């Protein structure tokens, strides 16, 4: 761009200089020409005079013979000759004229000039010869023509006098040529001015366009610099270490974080081969990976699934995570590596892993504890009951009525404890004895439950209405258990002397889940207990009012939670209860 501009400008300058020089030379050469012309004019004048002299002669003759001849512009020799012959008054000698007259020798020129005229002419001869240079022409006039005698001599002398002064003629012609050259000069001036004007505007155009281009270039450069600055700022401000690497693995750019991560100062990092930052055991394969990246440069995480380490200046290995981004610049293809130090994250992950492992162990210990405890606790209870039976049977007489009463209370307590243990076992089995998920049609499940509860439904004069229920992915046995617990609950807590009505309905929710409601018209409970009822062994009534250990709803909650759903209860005293279950469809 710049070269071209300089070229154009210099070409233009050269052209301009040429025009100027040409003009100067034109003007000065004009001067030269003029000088020359003046000289030339003088000699030309002489020629003209020579010719003119003939004319003069002719004029003289003409004056005598035919005055109209002067208007003829063509020098018609024959005509002149004929005039001469006719007039018979003059004889012209000289080379040229002689030639002419060679053909007209016969012409008898008479009368011969008088002596007087001859002398007059001879007296003028030198002058004429001077004038005519070589005296090529001699003039003879009719001596006997007194009419013209004086006139001729007057004319000749006057003419000769006139032409003797070359300066007068020169100035005359000078004037003419000066006028001419003035015109020429004016023309040259106009052309030059035009040239200069065009050139001026052209140069202005060039300069302005060049300036515009330059300012645009400046703007662009500024913009680029701004962007570069911005890029630099972004790179510098990035929370991650950033390293830009070229195809050959040379580091071309780093930020502060990269310096502190790898413990190298910036000057050392720039120009270093990236492999220096990789632990020796991974180093060998890296150039290959690098080539692979440049062969198909797409943004991606480096070494997905592998543990990556960076090597610091002090030889320390740092666990890192690397994101790769291809960047195309003027100087070629680069990769921008964003590096995160994951030491802290690794530590947390490890800690979390350990905690989860511990938790899993303690969970499984707890589960097996529940199972073992349940089983081992049952043993002594069974014996208490069995020996109680023996005691009652064999020793009734000796312990008396009071003793039998105590014994029975003891046995009933043992029975209740057994029930509690069984319930606890049942609750723990929601997770320990879980079945795999399958497609479960809840309509079928609820039908089965109703069939199982048939006698109880009849007993309580129950009315169970089921709307269309969905098919979901779930543990079939547990779904059965869930609805059995909810429906039997509704039957159990019905209002006295009234029919138990249970409505089961469902609707699809937006987030690919389903809401199932189980509503009854039973005794309900106060709102404040809506969370308590789902806790194991929590009861709102005495055992004498309602039997049971309070495990049913706890099991329901555990089942629903295991299916990643929620169960809530809404109720008021004597207003029935609405259980709302939200379960994912899958």
């Amino acid at each position, binding site marked *: 761009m710049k070269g071209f501009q300089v070229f154009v400008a210099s070409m233009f300058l050269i052209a301009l200089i040429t025009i100027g020089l040409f003009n100067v030379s034109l003007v000065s050469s004009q001067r030269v020409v003029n000088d020359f012309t003046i000289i030339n004019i003088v000699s030309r004048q002489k020629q003209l005079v020579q010719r003119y002299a003939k004319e003069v002669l002719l004029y003289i003759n003409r004056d005598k013979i035919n005055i109209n001849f002067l208007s003829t512009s063509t020098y018609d020799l024959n005509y002149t000759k004929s005039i001469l012959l006719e007039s018979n008054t003059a004889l012209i000698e000289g080379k040229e004229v002689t030639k002419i007259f060679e053909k007209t020798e016969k012409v008898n020129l008479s009368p011969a000039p008088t002596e007087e005229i001859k002398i007059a002419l001879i007296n003028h001869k030198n002058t004429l010869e001077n004038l005519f240079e070589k005296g090529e022409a001699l003039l003879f006039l009719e001596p006997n023509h007194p009419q013209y005698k004086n006139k001729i001599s007057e004319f000749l002398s006057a003419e000769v006098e006139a032409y003797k002064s070359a300066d007068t003629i020169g100035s005359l012609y000078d004037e003419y040529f000066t006028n001419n050259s003035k015109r020429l000069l004016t023309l040259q001036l106009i052309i030059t001015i035009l040239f200069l004007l065009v050139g001026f505007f052209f140069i202005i155009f060039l300069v302005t366009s060049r300036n515009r281009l330059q300012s645009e270039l400046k703007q662009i450069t500024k913009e680029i610099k701004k962007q570069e600055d911005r890029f630099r700022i972004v790179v510098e401000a990035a929370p991650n270490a950033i390293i830009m690497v070229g195809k050959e693995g040379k580091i071309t750019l780093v930020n502060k974080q990269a310096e502190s991560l790898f413990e190298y100062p910036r000057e050392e990092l720039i120009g270093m081969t990236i492999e220096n930052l990789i632990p020796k055991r991974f180093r060998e394969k890296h150039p290959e990976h690098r080539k692979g990246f440049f062969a198909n440069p797409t943004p991606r995480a480096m070494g997905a699934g592998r543990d990556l380490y960076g090597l610091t200046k002090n030889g320390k290995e740092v666990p890192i995570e690397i994101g790769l981004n291809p960047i195309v610049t003027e100087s070629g293809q680069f990769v921008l590596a964003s590096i995160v130090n994951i030491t802290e994250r690794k530590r947390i992950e490890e800690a979390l892993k350990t905690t989860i492992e511990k938790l899993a162990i303690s969970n499984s210990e707890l589960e097996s504890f529940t199972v073992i405890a349940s*089983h081992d606790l049952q*043993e002594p209870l069974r014996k208490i009951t069995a020996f109680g*039976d023996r005691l009652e049977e064999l020793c009734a007489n000796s312990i008396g009525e009071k003793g039998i009463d105590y014994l029975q209370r003891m046995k009933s307590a043992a029975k209740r404890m*057994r029930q509690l243990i069984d319930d606890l076992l049942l609750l723990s089995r929601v997770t320990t004895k879980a079945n795999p998920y399958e497609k479960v049609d809840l309509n079928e499940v609820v039908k089965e439950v109703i069939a199982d509860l048939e006698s109880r439904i009849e007993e309580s004069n129950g009315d169970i209405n089921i709307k269309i229920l969905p098919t979901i992915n779930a543990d079939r046995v547990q779904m059965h258990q869930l609805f059995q617990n909810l429906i039997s609950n509704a039957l159990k807590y019905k209002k006295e002397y009234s029919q138990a009505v249970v409505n089961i309905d469902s609707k699809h929710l937006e987030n690919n889940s389903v809401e199932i409601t189980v509503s009854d018209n039973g005794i309900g409970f106060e709102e404040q207990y809506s969370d308590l009822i789902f806790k194991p062994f929590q009861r709102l009534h005495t055992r004498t009012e309602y039997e049971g250990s309070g495990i049913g709803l706890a099991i329901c909650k555990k089942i629903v939670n295991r299916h990643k759903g929620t169960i809530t209860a809404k109720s008021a005293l004597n207003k029935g209860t609405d259980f709302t279950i939200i379960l994912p469809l899958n």
Partner: protein
Amino acid sequence: MEKEEEKKTITIVIAEDDDDDYELMMEAFKEAHLVNKTHRVKDGVELMLYLHDNFGKKQNFWESVLILLDLNMPRKDGREVLKEIKLNSDFKKLPIIILTTSKAEEDILRSYNDGANSYIRKPVEFGELLEIMKSLKKYWLEIVSLP
């Protein structure tokens, strides 16, 4: 009648580590009027010793023994010993009745799978135990033809 006599000579081997349970069982036997000889072993190791000791002493040994086996016992438990007996060509015909407190489905399935002839859960009340013993006597010692 000869067969009847033979059945009365069947020894009931009770593998039970718990004294209380053994005591209750013996009481139930008595009340059920079982007259058969009984022999108690306290774990799997003792049971195997008993079987090996008596094998050969009697002709048709496997015709003379009925085993009541508890699953949860020290040293060698019922599950292990059941497998061992049923894999032993000398003993595999011996009828084995599992009598245990375990309600686990897994135990029931595994026991039958390993060749147990019956699986009975120890009842809570004595009355139930008595009923079981009566049925046991009727079924295994009167109805069933043993090898």
